[in-house]
């Protein structure tokens, strides 16, 4: 039997050692209970602060992880680990809510551009298995607070009626009036501002 060259043996031993170390590091670094930061669906990355008996960790880069007891995790959990722990969790995530803004010419009359949005809203809602919808009416700052509370409510109700008459079938619709209390464009009182005369429709 020919002797194996010493360099080959050393390389094999070295590789085996490195693999064993990697494996150990992997085991040691991912605790059973941990938090992992992901980018938000819009691509931005926020921040999570994990506090426990073993310290406090601030996660602000995607892929960073910490033990739920506040201990740091040096090596991020490997992808196989994440798949094992979270693939069904991630698959169960509901469709993200969508929002539409509808604008009014005067009173409860929609602009023609907003009229044209209605079919898209209905199609969007119909594509979801369970629909709850929030409809919030707003006004600009012309006239009194009381008048605008009522007008914003009328706008919201008009949108609900329109959506229903076009075939919207929602299990739960909530209607609210924010009057002139929640301006999109900040203006002084008694200011004409078409962009504030709106109804927000959120499909969840």
């Amino acid at each position: 039997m020919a002797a194996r060259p010493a360099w080959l043996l050393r390389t094999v031993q070295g590789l085996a050692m490195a693999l064993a170390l990697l494996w150990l590091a992997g085991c040691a670094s991912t605790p059973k209970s941990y938090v992992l930061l992901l980018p938000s669906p819009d691509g931005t990355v926020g921040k999570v602060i994990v506090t426990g008996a073993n310290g406090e960790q601030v996660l602000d880069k995607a892929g960073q992880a910490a033990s739920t007891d506040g201990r740091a995790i040096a090596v991020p959990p490997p992808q196989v680990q994440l798949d094992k722990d979270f693939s069904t969790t991630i698959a169960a995530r509901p469709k993200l809510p969508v929002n539409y803004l509808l604008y009014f010419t005067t009173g409860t009359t929609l602009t023609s551009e907003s009229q044209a949005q209605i079919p898209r809203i209905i199609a969007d809602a119909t594509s979801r298995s369970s629909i709850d919808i929030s409809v919030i009416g707003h006004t600009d700052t012309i006239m009194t607070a009381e008048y605008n509370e009522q007008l914003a409510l009328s706008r919201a109700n008009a949108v609900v009626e329109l959506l229903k008459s076009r075939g919207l079938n929602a299990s739960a619709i909530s209607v609210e009036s924010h009057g002139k209390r929640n301006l999109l464009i900040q203006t002084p009182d008694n200011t004409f501002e078409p962009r504030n005369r709106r109804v927000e429709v959120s499909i969840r």
Partner: protein
Amino acid sequence: MKTPLVNMLVLVFALFATLGARAQDQPIGYVKTVAGEASITTAGARVKAEVGTPVYQGSLLQTGGKSSMGVTFKDETVMSFGADTTFSVDEYLYAPAQGKLKLGSKLSKGSLNYVSGVIAKLKPDAVSIATPTGVIGVRGTQFLVKVED
């Protein structure tokens, strides 16, 4: 031994408990996805979770083995849970016009995928998720968390 009468009484009790919970509070969210076994327990009444089942402040959300569930809240916070999960929504306030914003919850076991909504955007320190070994404070983002004994 369970008789039809007992079953009926249990049903009536459950119905009243649910109505009681409903009279106090509006739903704070709805179940959007379910696979396998999942339930929502509110004010002591447990119902099987189905698409469209309401969630209230104080509800306990549970999934069984090989199961999952997804919930979308009023403020557009989106959460989904993997198998063998127990999660409670202890405090939920969403009245932006009055500045009342709070989401206090607890993941006792299992896994959660969290996507922040309006509460975290408007009031960054208003969202917290407790675990058996610590607290997760959220500043508007998406994250995963797993809790295992």
